[in-house]
């Protein structure tokens, strides 16, 4: 049997009344569904650090959330932009520089203040291994959700869109992890959070190159 293109066109026109939700809606729904999974993982395995109330008065503790949320929000914005097939990264990539800029400002401020510990000690910290394990693991449910949500779009570069899904889920996971971690130095964040984020972005790119093709 064959199907004439005219017949297909008529069939598609008959389905014109069907309205799909915007990609942003699908992404939000998927992330909201996955968030409880990551939250349960976080509270079961890590939990908020006991001195959180005092830590909140430390601007470097607060900066961690600023950086990770900035990463999550800009990656969400860029990934939604890239879910349109004709979209290019140019003109949008600067959004991803915001978290890097915030970190750079944090590092500069820390350098100017007197510190108890030497620079290398602050950078190495005491939780680097937990950080590099916890962020990717907490990311996984969110990454799966982000990929499912973004499948609703039509990215011309599926691997790139997948990498952004990785970055946004790492940003959200790192926001949770930051509440547990006692290393507040921006040097620690710039090193270990970045490595963890890069790992998740690589997984996202690999998964995206398969899952996000349309």
């Amino acid at each position, binding site marked *: *049997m*064959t*199907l*004439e*293109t*005219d*017949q*297909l*066109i*008529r*069939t*598609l*026109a*008959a*389905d*014109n*009344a*069907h*309205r*799909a*939700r*915007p*990609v942003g809606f699908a992404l939000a729904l998927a992330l909201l569904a996955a968030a409880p999974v990551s939250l349960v993982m976080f509270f079961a395995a890590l939990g908020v650090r006991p001195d959180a109330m005092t830590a909140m008065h430390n601007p470097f503790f607060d900066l961690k959330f600023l950086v990770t949320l900035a990463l999550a929000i800009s990656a969400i914005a860029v990934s939604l932009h890239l*879910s*349109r*097939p*004709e979209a290019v990264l140019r003109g949008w990539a600067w959004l991803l520089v915001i978290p890097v800029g915030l970190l750079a400002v944090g590092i500069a401020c820390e350098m100017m203040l007197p510190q108890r510990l030497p620079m290398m000690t602050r950078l190495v910290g005491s939780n680097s291994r937990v950080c590099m394990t916890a962020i990717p693991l907490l990311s996984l449910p969110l990454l799966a959700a982000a990929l499912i949500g973004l499948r609703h*779009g*039509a990215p*011309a570069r599926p691997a790139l869109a997948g990498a952004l899904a990785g970055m946004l889920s790492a940003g959200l996971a790192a926001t949770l992890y930051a509440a547990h971690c006692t290393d507040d130095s921006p040097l620690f964040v710039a090193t270990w959070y970045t490595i963890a984020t890069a790992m998740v972005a690589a997984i996202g790119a690999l998964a995206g190159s398969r899952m996000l*093709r*349309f």
Partner: protein
Amino acid sequence: MPEREDEWTSLMRLAVSGDDAAYHRLLKAVTPVLRAAARRGLARSGQPVDQSEDIVQDILLAVHLKRHTWDADAPFGPWLFAIARNKLIDALRRRGRRVFVNIDDFAETIPSEPVAEIAPANEVAAQLQSLPARQREVLQSIAVDSASIKDTATKFAMSEGAVRVALHRGLASLTARLRER
């Protein structure tokens, strides 16, 4: 060819606002351009150009199922060509050729009407056979027997809403199956 694309944009805006006839006209209008681009892509990669109809149908399905990613404030042409380019590259890659397809190849394409030597498209039709019975029956009724949604509902003793759901799911699973080839 900016006038051509301006007309597409206005037709697509009408389509999004619920004008099925405008949508039908739009798809009819873009098809010869897609066909010409598919033939050119096939020719350039040393493939028989009579395979173009499968690619055209593949593109049309993607256009239909991804049309919510088109921004109604943006021109329709660049969006359409981006979808078409993606599908064309995929189709050529599946045939074992890695080729560079330029977006401008579409914008400057001279429309090509179906010509006698074009092989009938059979990939979509073949996948149609593998759909669940209800989806297949509804799709066949509308596509092959040219029945309206209303007539199809009467024929299968379904509600019109159920026919619409089966129609959309059928098109979506067709596309998913084509992608997984």
